[in-house]
């Protein structure tokens, strides 16, 4: 086992020397958007990235449910509402709010566009603005 770990370390070292350590401190938030900025993007297609239970108990009017565990079904629903001119904003439950970032990243790849954002502070931010129940 030690040999396996050592071999992996050598490969990792070579790869690390070739690439160099990136600075990811800035690009983590490139696609973050606040509620205020999202409203300025109208028309917006909202995507609810929370659990099915949370979605069913209340969501933004017109929001499409899409999360990582039910991707294909959710994407099918989204494609029925989406057109390339629409800005897409994904929100999650606000606790860390990382799944919205992942969903937005994946949507940018699958929709082939750059108009997909994730909402800073998610659902609680929408509630704070009086947009969500």
């Amino acid at each position: 086992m030690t040999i396996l770990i050592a071999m992996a370390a050598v490969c990792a070292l070579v790869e690390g020397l070739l690439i160099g350590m990136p600075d990811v401190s800035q690009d983590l938030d490139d696609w973050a958007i606040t509620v205020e900025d999202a409203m300025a993007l109208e028309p917006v297609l909202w995507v609810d990235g929370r659990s099915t239970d949370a979605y069913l108990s209340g969501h933004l009017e017109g929001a499409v449910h899409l999360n990582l565990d039910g991707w294909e079904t959710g994407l099918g629903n989204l494609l029925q509402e989406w057109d390339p001119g629409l800005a897409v904003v994904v929100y999650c439950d606000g606790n860390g709010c990382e799944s919205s970032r992942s969903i937005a990243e994946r949507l940018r790849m699958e929709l082939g566009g750059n108009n997909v954002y994730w909402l800073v502070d998610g659902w609680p931010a929408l509630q704070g603005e009086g947009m969500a129940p």
Partner: protein
Amino acid sequence: MRNVIKWIFLLALAAFFLVAGFLKVTDPVEFMRAILRYQLFAPTLAWVAALWVPWMEIAAALGLLLRSWRQASAGLIILLLIGFEILLGSAAYRGLDIDCGCLGSGAGSSVQLALLRNLGLLLAAIIVVILERPRK
């Protein structure tokens, strides 16, 4: 029958870790981001892990296919999976709503789903270790 069962689990494990390792090795920066989202590691440590872990997965996956390396590779996979489960459990406990990062970018799954999947993989690796031991 014993051999058939062993090879089913063995090939499933090798295929999973080969794919998982390859997807992350080809995009270590994205994997570093995924590690940072667990909010447990400094960037330098996350970078070291982003480079090292995928190569360990690939080495262990290939090692599973070689008889003389099989036990060691299965042992390494068990260690990796225990480590992953601790990280995922910690994220679930803290209520972090993150992509697990298990398969690099673009193939995400939730922490809860990854916890369950890794339990299955852990069971498969333990079965391989047991079945690989020589019979008395």
